[in-house]
């Protein structure tokens, strides 16, 4: 798909019909620059390509690995500040609209209020995520939020989790996405959203008198998925006995109800009355009697396990490099993980400097998930998003609603799942709607000249919906990276659908 530069210029001239050939923007951009932007962000916004070209790939990597060093746009901060429910803790979130009187069922009216509240809370969580993914300059952080939320997936459709998924992301995922894996694991394990989703809040050790056999009142759901999905991986060498041992270790973990004091801000609660205090043998380690600390010890063992290092490394390499990641790369990342005690930033830094990452055959090799496709299309237009509804609608249509993955394995990021006939129809329809300015995502610049200033500031913007996206600008934003075939198809079609064809092109389906 690499095309000789002379064809680029030629075809762009055909395509654009009489653009001044002295315009520097028609020069194709270094594929390495596009590759790094495509991997460390949800695709270029206007000016991004030029910015990375001028600052250099290495500085861009280091900048993105330190998101705290990147100032966020004031507009984004104020958008997020307007979301009232975003920073409430799980206790505050679930108390709303639910009767507090013990033993009393909520009335019809109370139930209605609770449903209304849940809707509002979930809606704000979706808005926050989409605003940050599209508008934030800390793009690698946003990419990692996508990655880790899926890894530690919680489904909003399950009971109380409708209140909690946003708080879960804010409290248990977001702060740790580039930190130590053990911290991330611990935060998810303690969060009420996870405790509820995988039923561990009901996991208790005390055996009922009529129980049969020697298995007490355990619930092994979380213990199993914690090993299979979150840490060791399905082939990580654990047995059914380890599942039971871990369920016993985690017995008594849950969240606070009214009247239960907790010493943390998200309402985790350890109930000693439900905990099995006996010594356990877990993955060959003896874990001595120790209440809640037993769970911490088990998480330490899991986080440090070579199987975990490998499982996480495989998934990171699959997300960032190719659907079938090279074994050599997975090995190197595994070593780095173990050498740095699970430092995610260090693992990524190694990845971004690896031979495999820079192998040209992996450029544009990943088929975008619906989420990546939608966010990248919005970003490419340069729109500063205020209304996220059209994006969440598309995600719904494409079977990838935010916070709506039912199963604990999260959404896949491989082509075999997302590439199908109906998805193509819907992606291309979205491409057309957004290219025509029909989605009312927000304010749009009225003067195309303002887009051409190099840099990321898009202001001043004027409210002016339904403005079609300029094809020349769009092509420039994307580094003029369309193949000859695509350019030919564009050149032979009506000018008003050029932008739709660019956003619906094979090149743009990939990252």
């Amino acid at each position: 798909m690499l095309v000789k530069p002379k064809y680029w210029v030629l075809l762009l001239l055909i395509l654009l019909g009489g653009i001044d050939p002295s315009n520097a923007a028609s020069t194709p951009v270094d594929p390495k620059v596009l590759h790094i932007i495509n991997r460390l962000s949800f695709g270029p916004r206007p000016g991004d390509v030029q910015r990375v070209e001028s600052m250099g790939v290495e500085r861009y990597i280091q900048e993105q690995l330190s998101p705290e060093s990147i100032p966020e746009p004031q507009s984004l901060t104020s958008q997020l500040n307007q979301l009232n429910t975003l920073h409430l803790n799980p206790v505050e979130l679930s108390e709303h609209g639910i009767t507090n009187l013990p033993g009393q069922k909520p009335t019809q009216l109370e139930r209605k209020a609770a449903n209304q509240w849940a809707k509002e809370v979930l809606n704000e969580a979706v808005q926050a995520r989409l605003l940050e993914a599209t508008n934030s300059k800390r793009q690698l952080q946003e990419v990692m939020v996508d990655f880790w939320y899926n890894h530690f997936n919680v489904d909003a459709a399950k009971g109380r989790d409708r209140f909690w998924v946003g708080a879960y992301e804010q409290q248990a995922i977001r702060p740790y996405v580039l930190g130590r894996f053990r911290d991330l694991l611990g935060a998810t394990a303690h969060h009420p959203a996870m405790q509820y989703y995988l039923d561990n809040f009901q996991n208790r050790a005390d055996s009922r008198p009529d129980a049969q056999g020697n298995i007490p009142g355990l619930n092994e759901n979380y213990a199993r998925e914690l090993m299979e999905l979150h840490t060791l991986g399905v082939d990580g060498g654990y047995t059914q006995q380890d599942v039971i041992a871990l369920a016993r270790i985690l017995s008594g973990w849950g969240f606070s109800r009214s009247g239960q004091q907790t010493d943390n801000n998200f309402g985790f609660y350890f109930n000693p009355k439900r905990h099995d205090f006996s010594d356990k043998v877990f993955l060959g380690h003896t874990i001595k009697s120790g209440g809640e600390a037993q769970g911490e010890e088990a998480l330490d063992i899991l986080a440090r396990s070579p199987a975990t290092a490998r499982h996480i490394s495989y998934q990171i390499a699959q997300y960032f490099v190719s659907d079938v990641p090279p074994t050599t790369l997975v090995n190197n990342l595994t070593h780095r993980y173990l050498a740095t005690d699970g430092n995610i930033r260090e693992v990524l830094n190694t990845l971004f400097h690896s031979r495999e990452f820079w192998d040209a055959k992996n450029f544009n090799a990943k088929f975008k998930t619906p989420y990546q496709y939608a966010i990248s299309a919005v970003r490419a237009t340069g729109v500063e998003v205020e209304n996220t509804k059209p994006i969440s609608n598309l995600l719904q249509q494409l079977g990838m609603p935010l916070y709506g993955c039912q199963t604990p394995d999260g959404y896949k990021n491989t082509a075999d799942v997302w590439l199908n006939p109906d998805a193509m129809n819907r992606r291309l329809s979205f491409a057309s709607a957004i290219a025509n300015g029909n989605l009312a995502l927000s304010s749009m610049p009225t003067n195309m000249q303002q887009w051409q200033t190099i840099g990321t500031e898009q202001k001043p913007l004027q409210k002016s919906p339904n403005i079609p996206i300029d094809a020349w600008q769009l092509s420039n934003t994307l580094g003029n990276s369309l193949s000859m075939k695509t350019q030919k198809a564009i050149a032979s079609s009506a000018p008003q659908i050029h932008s739709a064809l660019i956003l619906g092109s094979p090149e743009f389906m990939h990252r």
Partner: protein
Amino acid sequence: MKRRNFLIQGGIFSAAAITAVSSNAWIARSATPNIDQKRLIVIFLRGAVDGLNVVVPYSETAYYQARPQIAIPQPGKEGGVIDLDGRFGLHPALDSLIPFWQQNSLAFVHACGSPDPTRSHFDAQEYMESATPGDKHTQDGWMNRLLGVISQKTPIQAVSVGETTPWIFSGRMPVANIASGRNANRPLPIDRPQLAAAFDQLYGGNDALSQTYQQGRMARQAIMNDLDSEMKMANNGAPSPDSFASDAQRLAQLMLKDPRIELGFMALGGWDTHVNQGGTQGQLARNLKKLGSGLTSLVGGLGSVYQNTTIVVMSEFGRTVKQNDNGGTDHGHGNVMWVLGGNIRGGKVYGEWPGLSTAQLYQGRDLAITTDFRDVISAVLSNHLHLNEAKLNHVLPSYTSTQKIALIK
């Protein structure tokens, strides 16, 4: 691991291929509809349905001992099972299926499952969909391989309901999918001729992306046509309020209208009942009700085509015999498979019953497997779809039949 190794960038520009995507390609090829065409629909219950509470071994004391809260009472008792054969009873939430049982159109195979012992949902589903238990290197699903051997080279012979590609259908052969839910056949911008023509040109090649696009366009045209007339039908075609049932109805309508669609697939989730599974009523009962009305819609919608259709309902594994302390069950082993159809020797629970006393259980906790799920699939493939041995071996590689089940007339 990658199942379809075909996402090659770019692709060769083929001018000839562009013309192939004409708006009438699908319709033009529907020349000779064959009403004798055999059809197969698979419904996958994701999350591991508790088969012991679907087809209940009500004559076993061990069943009631292991499940003090969630067992379904014996026939005749309040909330009791519907007796099937004096030994097994059907969950009362599935009462809508009783007419099929009475017409000998519904059969079950109990203590059935995958020989691989995994308790991972995801591995177990993969093995059942690839039909190669224990082998993670299989590149495709068995329904895709099946499509390969029955292909008449019509544009679409298989339809999957849902937004993602299920493993069972992934592979070399193209498969159409229709989105689930109410808005699935609303008009889209891509239905506009000018845009469609431009994308036809852009995706006119032979590469995988182009082919997927072409399938999408053709399927959409056919589906929009068929479903459009469905919507115009009077009460007869009124969509069910339950989305699974209405999805099932749409699939049925397509198969009825378009005799070239031979294979269908739907999945229904929500069976992972670790907590509050319920008994006669509750979580599982609600899901079964939904499934029962979906199957009824499907059969009703298939109309005359049902006579030549087999419907298989399967799940990745069963659940523990003993209930846990949260009124649920955990991941188990053996399960029940359901088979419906015009050709079925129904009204019978097939399979050797291994028993539920502790000594008879798999690893002391689960219903043991006495029938490989591929024995059931193979019966359908050879006796319903009439695959010869070579084709059967292609669809079910490295499988040796352990028993012949006389499921099909």
